[in-house]
């Protein structure tokens, strides 16, 4: 399906903006080396009017990252959905994929413009720092610009060629989507090299002189951040797409429209929750590499002035897990046959709540002497035991297993297996889940009785048992419910409206969480632009407290959503202007088995 947008003035303007942004970036590159030479004569810093340079860079960097995460994350699952539509022949998937790409398409230009703005800020207000970074990474700037150009080209072709490359040429279109994603991932990896070099510099000598460009790129936190951001971008894209669908659902005038966006919201949440389940593992990998790079940095991050940040992070992740599960449980109410599984929900709530409480239990936090006296020590005499990594790892793994179980029950809510081995298959599934939970709990408890270096290794067994259980259970579930008897069709569009606010809650929370993690990544460098190499001697060399950071994150998140609203509104204007111009009507999905 396609042709939702005919070329028009809005589209042309958008195209022109993106091309201009790419061209500006490309033209800037040769100027960068000259800028680097001139920087020797320039002051170390200049002051941005009114708000200061740091806040200006903070705001624009966070906005740029939000948009970049969105336009890089959504195409990843959009192409997967397109492939599903292509292979199954179900047009609704193709429509949905196109709908997702349309969202990212609208955000493409502003991402590029914010990136250019960020570059100007660095050149203008941090000339010495930027000269140093240019000296290290100049060759990669060309790679970045080239990839950006190629990605722009591929995405535009992917989007505008939706009709042209349909039918027997669909495989070319799908390949374009895959190629767009490869270029996008390449862009992410290149820019991650710059960011991670600031945290964990490599490829340089003690004086900061470049010895190996590859060493600077493949610094200790580069790959962990690549993986973490790639997964997080998918979660982010899923939540934003889900929130978009929620607003469209709540504003819908017809049942059909409501059904369509109910389904879109469900898919957005499904994508987000699927990626969210593996995100904590990527986070642990990143944390481990930070410790391996520099113990002081790791300890400052987890047990120093930032320790409260992880309590807030735990709360946000708890909200994400509980919110996602709640949405699934609400969704089951529109599925005939789901009543069979409702009795499990209270137990799942208990596990999630307990996991949330454990994860949010602090251990090493700065206390005033009076607070320490009241508590009877630096950590709580009873609950303090839950604040260590053994308990937290166990909690998060059990939360992930529970979330997977929620999805499993949702998936089979209106299905009855017709396989003769159905009973045994399900029993094996329960045994697998039980074994995984036992392994996770066993290593969680055992971790209290061994040295920390051994304990760290236990988290690998816990993660592998959970991921293994998920893979095995799904391997049984797919054939188990293939050709299953339906107990009724899903009544898309009849989900309780409060579920849509859950989708919005997830989007807002994850966006805020991204801002918080950005602050953590940047804050652990403390008074260094490049940790241990280029010291921050500006008036803003101090690292702010969490309250200050939270105020800033909230302001930027509000601005981000206002910009998103504006962009989507622009997109809707284009849609209204072409009413009746669609070559193919949007699919009817008010009732379906899936």
């Amino acid at each position, binding site marked *: 399906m396609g042709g939702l947008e005919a070329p028009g003035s809005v589209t042309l303007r958008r195209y022109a903006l993106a091309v201009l942004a790419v061209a500006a970036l490309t033209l800037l590159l040769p100027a960068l080396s000259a800028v680097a030479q001139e920087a020797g004569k320039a002051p170390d810093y200049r002051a941005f009017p009114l708000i200061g340079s740091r806040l200006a860079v903070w705001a624009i960097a966070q906005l740029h990252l939000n948009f970049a995460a969105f336009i890089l994350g959504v195409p990843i699952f959009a192409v997967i959905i397109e492939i599903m539509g292509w292979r199954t022949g179900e047009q609704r998937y193709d429509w949905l994929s196109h709908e997702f790409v349309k969202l990212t398409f609208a955000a493409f230009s502003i991402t590029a413009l914010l990136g250019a703005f960020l570059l100007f800020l660095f050149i203008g207000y941090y000339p010495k720092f930027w000269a140093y970074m240019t000296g290290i990474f100049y060759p990669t700037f060309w790679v970045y610009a080239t990839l950006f150009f190629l990605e722009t080209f591929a995405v535009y072709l992917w989007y505008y060629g939706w009709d042209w490359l349909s039918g027997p040429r669909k495989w070319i279109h799908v390949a374009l989507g895959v190629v767009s994603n490869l270029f996008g991932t390449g862009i992410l990896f290149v820019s991650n090299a710059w960011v991670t070099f600031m945290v964990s510099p490599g490829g340089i000598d*003690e004086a900061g002189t470049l010895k190996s460009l590859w060493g600077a790129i493949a610094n200790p936190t580069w790959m962990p951040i690549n993986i973490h951001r790639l997964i997080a971008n998918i979660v982010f894209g899923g939540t934003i797409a889900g929130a978009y669908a929620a607003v469209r659902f709540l504003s819908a005038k017809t049942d059909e429209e409501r059904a369509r966006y109910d389904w879109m919201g469900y898919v957005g949440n499904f994508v987000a929750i699927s990626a969210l389940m593996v995100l904590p593992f990527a986070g642990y990998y990143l944390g481990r590499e930070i410790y391996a790079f520099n113990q002081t940095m790791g300890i400052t991050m987890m047990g120093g002035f930032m320790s409260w940040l992880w309590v807030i992070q735990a709360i946000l992740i708890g909200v994400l897990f509980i919110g996602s599960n709640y949405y699934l449980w609400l969704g089951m109410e529109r599925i005939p046959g789901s009543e069979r599984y409702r009795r499990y929900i209270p137990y799942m709530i208990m596990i999630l709540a307990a996991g949330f409480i454990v994860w949010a239990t602090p251990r090493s936090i700065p206390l005033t002497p009076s607070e320490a006296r009241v508590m009877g020590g630096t950590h709580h005499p009873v609950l303090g035991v839950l604040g260590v990594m053994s308990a937290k790892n166990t909690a998060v793994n059990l939360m992930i297993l529970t979330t997977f179980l929620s999805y499993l029950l949702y998936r089979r809510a209106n299905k009855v297996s017709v396989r003769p081995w159905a009973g045994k298959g399900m029993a094996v599934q329960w045994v697998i889940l039980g074994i995984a939970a036992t392994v996770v709990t066993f290593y969680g408890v055992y971790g209290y009785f061994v040295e920390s270096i051994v304990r760290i290794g236990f988290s690998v067994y816990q993660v592998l048992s959970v991921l293994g259980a998920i893979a095995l259970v799904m391997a049984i579930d797919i054939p188990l419910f293939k050709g299953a008897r339906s107990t009724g069709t899903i009544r898309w569009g009849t989900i309780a409206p409060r579920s849509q606010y859950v989708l919005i809650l997830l989007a807002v929370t994850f966006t805020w969480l991204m801002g918080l993690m950005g602050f953590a990544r940047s804050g652990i460098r403390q008074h260094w632009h490049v940790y241990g*190499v280029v010291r921050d001697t500006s008036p803003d*060399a101090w690292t702010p407290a969490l309250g200050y950071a939270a105020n800033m994150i909230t302001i930027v998140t509000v601005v981000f959503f206002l910009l998103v609203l504006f962009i989507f509104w622009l997109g809707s204007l284009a849609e209204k202007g072409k009413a009746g111009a669609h070559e193919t009507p949007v699919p009817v999905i008010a009732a379906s088995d899936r």
Partner: protein
Amino acid sequence: MRVPVLVKVGAFALLVMGSYTYYANSIPQIQSLPPQELSLEGGNVTPEQLVKAGEEIFHGKGTCEICHRIGQKGTRAPDLAGVGARAGSRKPGTSAKAYLMESLLEPGAYVVEGYPNIMPKVDRPPIGLNRSEVWALTAFLESLGGTVDVKLDDIPKSAGAAAGAAGAGAAELKLPGDPKAGQAVFAGKGGCIACHRAGAIGASPVGPDLSQIAKIQTPEYVMGKILNPAAMGTVAGFPPGVMPQTFGQTLTSREYVDLVSFLLTLKGEGAHPPGAGSPAKK
């Protein structure tokens, strides 16, 4: 009245973000401030002052406290209680002083059994202690059950050479006073010139030469020494009780602040009297 969907959604989103922001503002607010540089080279400093400076480095810039405790066994690093006494017997043939310096500058050379080899070199970035700071920190560690006998000359000249790194620079203390007016107080109403030399100004040998006082002493010391000289001790080699105790009454607060500002521009070789180009503005 029907509330538009976008208004409801916006209010809900603001409520969610507001609750996160409120919580983040309700917990202890801790900033991370860039460390101040300490320089004691070429100055007279008593062992007590040295140990005190070292203790501050231990708790602050040195970030030692992240892993080490004094009087409490740590999981990452040894308890330092009594390390001054214990250090001499750690490695055969190595004195306590040499062992402690090695522990700070080459921590991987000897690792206490049962602990991981994770300690960074304290004179290298990101900790980046300078030579004076390594000296003071060694003295503090010696004071934990041992005898403070470390001299600045014991610390290798190379220590702290890389502390600054590519973009390093010490944070300057900004005082509200006018150094030029303070110089006038020094040479005029204050009468300091009668006993002290300050760079190109004065030549009296009665009191200590203050030409690099900003480099070898803290602002707190300088301020305290003017108002209550007896309480701040007497510099070795000079007679006690000579410095007047009356500056707190004879100088106005403006003159006092100006005088302190002037004294804090005196940094030895690079220091020049105000008017000839303040080094702080370089």
